């Protein structure tokens, strides 16, 4: 007598387990499956978060475990919010965040729009364009420091070629005015391809018949672009902005490699200062408070943004 596959599977289950499971509800079985994951999340995400919040109200220093830990109330938060240097860090972060997103969206969308048009060598160009984002940020930071070197740097020579200025007459990484733009340029060079790929996915998801219908209605190319292309790519673009925004808010490695936060504190982004406070100065309580402030900021902004994104999708 042959058994059907379901029966075979049922018989393969050990009797003791089968008996135990038989008495459980679907909900209980679901909990058994998701339980380990939830425990893992609690252990590696929620517990550290709660612990960090707890530490943020203390004067704890991780390098001085023998020192008595005192609860200092909101003093760490008060110090951070009243510290003009922290606000300069936030300004530097905002400058970096806004301008990288603006450039990456503009250039990324333009590249996607160009790549989306059928032409010879299309695939090859796509591969070449996405190469920068495949590199390690440490490597990118390192070789751009050479590009920006005033005496031998390629970047300075290219600028010199077009403007006639002496290559060693300006310092991209050493000048207070130019360094914030130098890091924007490198991040844009590296991550524009990412935005381009997302935009390309959006452009390719637009069915051709919509353009055909618009053409029959005698809509101009310009009109098609503004009333079909942009609205239909917008959710993708907004998603790209969300990804890049979150990434750049916590940008660390690339900028550390390029400028180390200098000259002075000109490019000291919030995450760089946070690392200094936490793991160089070992002000654990203070840096925990700083981390919580940054977390609340990015979480709040991202939540507002996601709501806006959902509204756009619903349209």
């Amino acid at each position, binding site marked *: 007598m042959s058994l059907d596959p379901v029966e075979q599977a049922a018989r393969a289950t050990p009797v003791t387990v089968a008996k135990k499971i038989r008495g459980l509800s679907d909900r209980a079985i679901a909990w058994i499956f998701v339980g380990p994951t939830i425990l893992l999340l609690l252990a590696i995400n929620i517990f550290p978060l709660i612990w960090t919040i707890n530490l943020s109200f203390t004067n704890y220093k991780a*390098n001085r475990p023998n020192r008595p830990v005192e609860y200092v109330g909101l003093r760490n938060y008060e110090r951070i919010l009243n510290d003009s240097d922290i606000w300069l860090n936030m300004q530097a972060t905002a400058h970096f965040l806004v301008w990288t997103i603006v450039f990456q969206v503009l250039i990324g969308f333009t590249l996607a729009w160009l790549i989306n048009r059928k032409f010879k060598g299309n695939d090859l160009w796509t591969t070449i364009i996405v190469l920068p984002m495949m590199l390690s940020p440490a490597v990118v930071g390192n070789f751009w420091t050479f590009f920006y070197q005033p*005496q031998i740097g390629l970047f300075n020579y290219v600028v010199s070629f077009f403007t006639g200025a002496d290559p060693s007459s300006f*310092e991209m990484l*050493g000048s207070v005015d130019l360094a914030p733009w130098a890091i924007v340029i490198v991040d844009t060079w590296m991550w524009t391809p990412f935005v381009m790929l997302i935009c390309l996915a959006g452009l390719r998801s637009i069915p051709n018949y919509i353009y055909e219908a618009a053409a029959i209605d005698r809509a101009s190319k310009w009109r098609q672009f503004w009333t079909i292309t942009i609205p239909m790519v917008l959710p993708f673009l907004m998603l790209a902005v969300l990804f890049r925004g979150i990434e750049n808010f916590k940008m660390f490695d690339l900028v550390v490699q390029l400028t180390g936060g200098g000259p*002075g504190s000109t490019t000291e982004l919030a995450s760089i200062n946070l690392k200094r406070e936490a793991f*160089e100065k070992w002000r654990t309580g203070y840096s925990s408070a700083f981390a919580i402030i940054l977390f609340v900021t990015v979480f709040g902004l991202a939540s507002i943004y996601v709501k806006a994104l959902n509204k756009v999708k619903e349209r």
Partner: protein
Amino acid sequence: MKLKRLASAALILGTGYAASPVMADDLTLCWAAWDPANALVELSKDFEAQSGHNMSFEFVPWPNFADRMLNELNSGGKLCDLLIGDSQWIGGGAEAGHYVKLNDFFDSEKISMDDFAPATVYAYSTWPKGTPNYYALPAMGDANGWFYRKDWFEREDLKAEYKASTGNELGEPKSQKELMEVAKFFQEREIDGKKVYGASIFTERGSEGITMGATSALYPWGFKYENTPGKYDMEGAVNSPEAVEALEFYKGLYDCCTPPGYTDSYMGESLDAFKSGQVAMAMNWFAFFPGLYADPDTGGDKIDFFVNPPQNQAGSTLGGQGISVISYSENQEASLEYIKWFAQPDVQAKWWSMGGYSAHNSVLNDPGFKDSQPFAGDFLVAMDAVQDFWQEPAYAELLLAMQKRLHDYVVADKGTAKEALDALIEDWTEVFEDEGKL
């Protein structure tokens, strides 16, 4: 029969123990990755041969050295059995229990701190400062000094031009202001068809570079950390008129006389600038001088050395380190054995001959020492007037605050020297308040 077996077993164990007094251990010594570390690897081969222990080495590049090693100590790591740690770590190392206190060991092994140069014992070994509580043996004396292109300084055309433009003889600067005068003379000058620059100085932001560089100007002007030692009364000392003038001088030197793009330069960049023939003068630690002298392109008769010039007084920034036994090490006995071996006068003499800077009096007071290397005499002079940064347990916080304030002013043109030093006092006051010292 049983008795016989027991007796023979005891004999075997006894003779075996006598043949090898201690079991061979694997010791790891941690230090920065630089020329003297390579010399120490060679020197330690003698220890391996004599003791039977195996030596491993963990060398970390200077910009990451403090970060890496302090993390290791703070986490109670067992990577290092022995650590040649920076002088400023001694307070933290002692108070947090990272370093083994060596007094009893020194007493039992008849190792006397009187056998080492007093400045190095004070700076590298004692905590609290100046008390006879020793946490390290002076391992490597060092100070920030200068070297220059002797072949350029000796060119008749340049000498004549310098004399005509300044009225002085072109030579080793005798004061800080003269140093700037010489640097200005060479800045953007064409020598052998190549544009050269005045001086390479420390401007690095991330670790300790600009502090070590700027204090080389601050100390000769008479900079003090406190009005009264141990009282943390910094107002009027840290921001004294002399300190302000010195910091303005250092910024002036950076603005007038460094190669383009040297906004974040430290030891490596200084060496590169000099070896590539870019600069007439450069500051760096004496530890690099043997390697510089041996360089086939810019060493030998093309280079000479001088002590950091005085201004209101003599003053050099202290470098160098002591060697400590890590309290988390499982090989403390063997580590102490290494220290005992290293403290011997003949080992110290060999250490100097291989490129390490011994702090042992038997080496430094040897009549032939001054002439043993072209920079040996300068080293002795420099070590007579060294000053060090705070060596407090909160040293990292104090240092990073100074890095920020100095870089903001010197490189980023933010505010005035007085404002930078005032802000530094505020930062340091906050640190000492947190420490319960104010």
